[in-house]
């Protein structure tokens, strides 16, 4: 054991050096959020748009490399390395796998989304570059503990610019109200409903540790209206409920503590510290 530990430490440092040299942060330690058919309660459902009555299973989602910008708010940074691995899952169904939507928009490859089939049409869903949030997914926690997540969600039919639907996504574990349809010169663009849910009705989500695994999970609810320029169901309301899991401990995690890192490596918390001594080391002159 006494021999293995130092070797393991050297290996770990070597690996860390390699990752840093490659410009990569250690992804295994980053914070992640996921929602897949096999995760707790599955992915969730999409309702509508408009009078399309069949609830549609949501596409799988894996958000990786999320960084905390404050104790409760976090961001999935924009990242794209073109056709190199890793690519987002849905791209496999929409070749070529090049990190781009069919109009050339770069995909945020930290947001790994699967193919979405809605009303018989297949879409490549993605968080795209630019837009309100500069290609990032951003999450804010309010005083009551509810989390609101925003991003520019793009649905790509794979036929170029005319087949791309840009939907500002605002999901919350709180409560949302289903909007009415948009108006066009002829009147309302469609029915005042998102499938089985009527405009004006409310949806609530939740957040906590409901599967009792020690990590945050919950359900985000989101509503919106398809843009009038959409090739499918233009101007019509939709709603969705997205179940998710994370690897964020429900009791929080201690970030940025040299003492905690020491403990993780099996050293006393203060090993190597220079605390409160004043003056500090100036190095050999």
């Amino acid at each position, binding site marked *: 054991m006494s021999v293995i530990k130092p070797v393991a430490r050297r290996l770990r440092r070597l690996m860390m050096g390699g990752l840093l040299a490659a410009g990569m942060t250690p992804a295994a330690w980053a914070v992640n959020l996921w929602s897949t058919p096999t995760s707790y309660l599955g992915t969730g459902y999409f309702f509508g748009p408009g009078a399309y009555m069949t609830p549609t299973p949501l596409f799988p989602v894996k958000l990786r490399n999320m960084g905390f910008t*404050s104790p409760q708010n976090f961001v999935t940074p924009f990242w794209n390395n073109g056709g190199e691995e890793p690519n987002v899952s849905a791209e496999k169904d929409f070749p070529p796998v090049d990190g781009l939507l069919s109009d050339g928009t770069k995909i945020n490859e930290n947001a790994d989304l699967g193919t979405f089939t809605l009303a018989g049409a297949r879409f490549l869903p993605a968080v795209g570059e630019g837009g309100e949030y500069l290609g990032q997914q*951003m999450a804010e926690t309010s005083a*009551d503990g509810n989390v609101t997540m925003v991003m520019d969600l793009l649905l790509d039919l794979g036929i170029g610019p005319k087949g791309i639907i840009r939907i500002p996504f605002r999901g919350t574990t709180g409560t949302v109200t289903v909007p009415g349809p948009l108006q066009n010169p002829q009147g309302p663009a469609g029915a005042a409903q998102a499938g089985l849910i009527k405009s004006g009705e409310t949806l609530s989500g939740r957040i906590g540790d409901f599967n009792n695994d020690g990590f945050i999970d919950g359900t985000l609810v989101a509503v919106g209206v398809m843009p009038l320029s959409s090739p499918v169901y233009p101007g019509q309301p939709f709603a969705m409920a997205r179940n998710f899991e994370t690897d964020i401990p429900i009791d929080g995690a201690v970030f940025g503590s040299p003492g905690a890192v020491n403990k993780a490596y099996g050293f006393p918390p203060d*090993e190597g510290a220079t605390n409160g001594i004043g003056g500090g080391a100036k190095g050999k002159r």
Partner: protein
Amino acid sequence: MNHKHIKSPVCAALIGAGLLACGTADAFTVFSTKDSYMGAGTFFGPGKLPTSPLFDVTIHNVAFTSAATFVTPFVNNGAAEPNVPGEVATTDKPDGYFSDGKTPLNENAEVGPFVLNGTKVLVGIGGGGAHRGEQISVLLDKHTMIMTMDIVFDMGIGAAGVVASPFYGTTKEATLPLSLQTQLGIEGGVDRAGPLKSGDKIHGQLGDSNGDGRLDGAIVVTGNMPLTSVFMPGAPFALIRYFDTDMPYNGQVVGKLPGSVAERQKQADKATYAFPAAEAKLVSVKTAEAGE
């Protein structure tokens, strides 16, 4: 925040703008200036040049990606404010780029001008390299931190005077290398950096030396100027950079939700559909209709 009353995409956009503002305001800051604890630090060499006081630097928007890793994301908005003071001091028309016109500055690293041997030099984190313009730091055991980035020295004379170099700083110890000429067996190398001789070691530190409850320390770096450099080619250099942060020395608890599940559950009582429980009901209704 009462989400129930937020009903339009306009509100979503406003929230997004708010998040951007809050996100940046709440991120951590690393600073190393002549007025901070221990000052900014010292640059040794390169080669026979004497020591020089290090330029001021304040690194904004530092975000944790894990318990031991923090990153300064790459940000560059071109000529628009804010521009880094070092660029403002070394050019009449700051544009967010080094003088080669193609290497962007990470404007989250607010660097001051560096006066080296009487000449103003722009030093910054350059975009497009192995780190994609980011500064990445990792905490290791025994109070050791390493910090890496692609550092760029710019003499302000265009591409020929722009020198990019991998920066690997540590709070532990660094040894001054021989000049590249000596390493290659070529005559004319200068095997020193100011008062330091090749083989000398300089030491950093990490802890809370000023006892303010925040992480501080000293990062040491050694290296060589590239042989292609127009300025002291191949000569070794060293630096010690003192730094303060606003990061709590005992770490920051992140991800802990305020409020209580019980309080939040009250929202379900008022909603038409409370998820995830409503999911089964809605899906089964449609399934039953399909069966009919």
